[in-house]
């Protein structure tokens, strides 16, 4: 029998060939815009038609915090599903208009936006009970992926987004959301590493980078939103030249004059219009949305101040506004301050990343509460003034009405601190930020989400209005 001997160059050549092929491994690129109207189906306006359906406008903001945040926000969704609105043949969940999400909360928000009530049938098995961390580690240990990972254009986050795409989001893209034509309008938030600013996966934001949102996979947006610093790598997007007919919006033109009048408005416009410099910024690298805002409320803040919500209020299309903030902030047990020797590099790196995530969460919630309180105060001032005029001036003078009229506004902020049961509070607050929790931990988080929502005084006040 004839024996074949492998040439001594066979294995080196095979390895070289595999490395060569692996250099072809490339992350999935976003596509350029062919037409300036292409992204319109995935815009706030497109999701808010017909406009007369919005007497009750419900906004959800889901924070980051891995599976802890995903389960906690799932509990709130479940309670909303079980809450029937008296006099209307609807549940509160049917009224959800916007869901703005970060990191772990993005899994729950995106799954609900994509699959609707199906979330209550299979999301626990598809995400909450899974050990995603182990699956990601196994993917990293798979030799077939080593070669792909040796490419400079393919990294750990691309493996993660492939896993999410295949096993959770079923290859859904933003076109799938646009085609559903069903609210809530999903805003997945990530952070642009260059400016440290919020980057949202919406048609409006993709217009700034000359890119098509409809073909972009939801799994990649969720991966960007949850790309935890140091553990996962950034997601890269291409900043494409604009198609013919693209013009800077009038709102941005005005805002760019506002450095001395309104810095928040000015910097928002500056961050968005920065992408017009295609040569200076040909790529964007996105990481965990929590680096810019770990609550998901800044997107809501912007819509309320200057975006679609503001227009709806001024157009008199909202009678009741309910903002539900689900904040899964934890307090992991640490022994940092028990040792005289300073913590090591890894601990400092991790702490640095998470401290910045948590620092502004409280202020962000307070900011939206203040804006809501200001609106209520304006309505009361106008009413009070008119009453005085009616009492003391006999000519029947009427003050100009406030656009939007007497809206009812509520902010339901849900966090573990609201729990009365100290043992349960401490247990939940000490759960780590991870993509693997035990089943009983997941169930306790879901129960806490339901209980805290149901018992929140602002939610009760909102429901009393329907009686």
């Amino acid at each position, binding site marked *: 029998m004839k024996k074949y001997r492998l040439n001594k160059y066979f294995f080196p050549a095979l390895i070289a060939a595999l490395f060569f092929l692996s250099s072809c491994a490339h992350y999935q690129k976003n596509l350029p815009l062919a037409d300036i109207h292409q992204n319109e189906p995935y815009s706030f306006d497109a999701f808010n038609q017909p406009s007369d359906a919005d007497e009750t406008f419900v906004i959800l903001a889901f924070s980051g915090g891995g599976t802890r945040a995903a389960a906690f926000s799932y509990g709130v969704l479940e309670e909303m599903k079980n809450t029937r609105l008296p006099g209307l043949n609807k549940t509160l969940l049917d009224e959800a208009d916007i869901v703005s999400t970060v990191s772990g909360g993005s899994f729950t928000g995106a799954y609900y936006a994509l699959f609707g009530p199906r979330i209550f049938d299979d999301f626990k098995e598809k995400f909450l009970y899974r050990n995603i961390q182990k699956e990601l580690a196994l993917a990293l240990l798979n030799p077939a992926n080593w070669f792909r990972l040796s490419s400079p254009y393919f990294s750990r986050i691309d493996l993660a987004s492939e896993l999410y795409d295949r096993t959770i989001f079923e290859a859904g893209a933003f076109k799938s959301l646009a085609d559903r034509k069903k609210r809530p309008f999903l805003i997945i938030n990530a952070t642009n590493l260059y400016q440290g600013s919020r980057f949202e996966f919406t048609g409006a934001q993709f217009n700034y980078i000359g890119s098509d949102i409809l073909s972009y996979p939801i799994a990649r947006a969720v991966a960007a939103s949850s790309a935890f610093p140091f553990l996962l790598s950034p997601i890269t997007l291409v900043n494409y030249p604009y198609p013919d007919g693209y013009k800077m919006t009038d709102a941005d033109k005005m805002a760019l004059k506002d450095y001395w009048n309104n810095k928040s408005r000015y910097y928002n416009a500056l961050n968005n219009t920065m992408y017009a410099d295609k040569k200076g910024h040909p790529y964007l690298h996105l990481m965990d949305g929590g680096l810019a805002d770990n609550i998901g409320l800044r997107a809501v803040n912007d819509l309320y101040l*200057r975006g679609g919500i503001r*227009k709806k209020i001024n157009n008199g299309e909202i009678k009741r506004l309910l903002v539900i903030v689900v904040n899964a902030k934890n307090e992991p047990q640490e022994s940092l301050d028990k040792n005289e020797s300073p913590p090591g590099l890894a601990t400092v790196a991790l702490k640095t990343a998470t401290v910045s995530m948590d620092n502004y969460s409280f202020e962000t919630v307070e900011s939206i509460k203040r804006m809501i309180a200001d609106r209520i105060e304006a309505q009361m001032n106008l009413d009070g003034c008119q009453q005085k005029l009616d009492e003391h001036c006999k000519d029947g003078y009427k*003050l100009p*009405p406030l656009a939007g009229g007497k809206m009812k506004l509520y902010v339901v902020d849900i966090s573990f601190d609201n729990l009365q049961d100290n043992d349960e509070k401490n247990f939940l607050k000490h759960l780590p930020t991870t993509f693997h929790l035990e089943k009983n931990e997941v169930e306790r988080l879901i129960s806490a989400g339901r209980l805290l929502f149901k018992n929140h005084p602002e939610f009760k006040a909102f429901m009393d209005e329907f009686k």
Partner: protein
Amino acid sequence: MEYLLVKFQESRGVIIDGASEGMTNEALELETGFHSVTLEPPPDFTPELHEFILRKTSVISPRVISFEKI
């Protein structure tokens, strides 16, 4: 927030910073800063556009701008 009253002899849609938002003769709630304001068609009003800084207003003392019918 700031408050703007766009006066016109009839009720007409207002265009603020290029987008339809609110009606004339109502106090509109807007962000502090530069704004451009015009009215929905028909183009039977003057001036064509107001551009101004909106600041230091309140709901009972809004900034007032007017359009005249031609």
